[in-house]
């Protein structure tokens, strides 16, 4: 009887110890709130129809003017002109810095029904 009482006491002590130190708490399941914000809808933009050939067409090479990338842009321009001579390749600097928009240039390209290569650094 004394052994049994002692056993119960030890078990109770272990349980109390375990509870006080949070043993088993990790097994408790909880629900938490989502920290993420709301993403906007994405409207799909159909791509512009492609011409069958670039012969006789104008293609703008738009340099966004990322610092010190001019040699690459000029080499690209020269290589395209040489490889595809029937295309009218136009090299143009975008207005202002590489982070700035240039709606006038985009309108010009569209008006001329041209194609565009837009170069971005780095």
């Amino acid at each position, binding site marked *: 009887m004394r052994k049994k009482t002692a056993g119960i006491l030890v078990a109770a002590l272990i349980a109390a110890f375990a509870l006080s130190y949070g043993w088993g708490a990790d097994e408790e399941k909880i629900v938490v709130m989502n920290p993420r914000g709301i993403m906007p809808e994405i409207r*799909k933009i159909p791509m512009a129809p492609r011409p069958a050939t670039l012969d006789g067409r104008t293609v703008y090479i738009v340099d966004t003017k990322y610092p010190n990338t001019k040699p690459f842009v000029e080499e690209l321009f020269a290589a395209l002109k040489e490889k595809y001579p029937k295309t009218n390749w136009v090299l143009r600097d975008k207005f202002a810095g590489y982070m700035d928009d240039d709606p006038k240039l985009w309108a010009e390209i569209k008006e001329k029904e041209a194609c565009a290569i837009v170069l971005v650094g780095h």
Partner: protein
Amino acid sequence: MGVPSVPMITQRFEELVTTIAYKKGIPNMRITYTPHPITDRPAELCRQYVAGNDPLTGRPMLEEIYDSLTRPLSAEDAKAGFLKRDPRPRLIGPDTRDKLMEYFHEQGFTDGNPVILPTEEKVDEMLKATSRERDEWVGQMRPSPPHEAWYYTVEMVAVNAVMAGAKPDYFPTILALASKGVTSLFSSTSSFARMAVVNGPIVEEIGMNTGIGALGPMSRPNSSIGRSWTLISKNLGGSGKPGETYLGSQGNQLNYNNLCFPETETGLPEGWKPLHVQKGFDSSDSVVSIFSGWSINDIAWYSPLPIHEVIRGWLENFFSFGVSQATLILDPIVAADVASKGFASKEAYARYLADNTGTPGWLYWSEHPKELKQAESGVEPYAGWLKRGKDTVVPVSRYKGGRRGSSSFLASKDTNEPTTSIEIVVTGGGTNTFWSGGDFGYVGSASVDHWR
């Protein structure tokens, strides 16, 4: 815009550009990649790049461009409609705390350190600190201009405030920060840092540390308000995913708590206005102000020179990102020393600094090739400057004009002093004559009282 086009991107940014293309609604955008980087490469190497292959597809670069501009569209390419987004459940779980913590880390919800799991009870407790409705919109935020903006409510800000370890008392300040819609993790290859300065009665109310160690990890409100901004930027502003929504090459340690500290208004010399008053608020208003920059120097140096001259000398030679803005964080002892030399206001000292700092020669001439040519052709005043030696300081201040596109450098209303791009904030415990300075510029301020 209805124009057949092909962007050319360096291969390092594949993840960024495909993600942005998706978010802009063109998931199948035809992109040609070049080797990385193309900046600062000699013409001969560029010629090889152009004659070579797209490093990602392995196809000849020029042929790929031609093909991208002429290949007929697939049915999918030509389709309109909406693209799929991940659903956003309001609640996550149930699961054990350990597993939820791991999930938060895996999802990128954290700053890499453990967070307080945002149970509904804790979030409700946070929400009691504001009169605002939990569903009220607070703002929108994006990693940088090309990226989409995400939107968030008062409740969503509260979730992140809980995660950062903030007490409910801090919540109006955190809401004010969030309301500015400025990410603390700006996506640029240069690794931006941010700074948040708190002014007004709220500082004492919530027990911010204005004394010893104000800039260090010594105070729960200083630390957790700053940390909240990082978590808000990640979770509500869609920022901070390396390669996709964060491009800082080395990253920035300051982003952990965004240099969040209060100004020691009781330590301001007579006549020196607190930052929020300089920006048009009343001294009784509680305000949080945001700064943007990259780096901060902690200057601990004894000198026979008067301290206002030491600061001038540092500012003249300071260089980080080539920007023309600076913020000085002065210990109250330093502020008092500067004021004792006759500078009756922060603006007066900023004006003195702008008027009496030049630009190191190596920096000036490297950034002004046109002027260098003029100097070499004998055009004055450039020729005279160059004659003194290419490394000699050029008498052109970098801090006179104020920062373009910002209202931040307007002169204070009652002095009409000309603008400078130098800000001055006072904080610290007055244990020594030390100060900090960096390339931070003022972005804007928000009323904390508005969010109580």
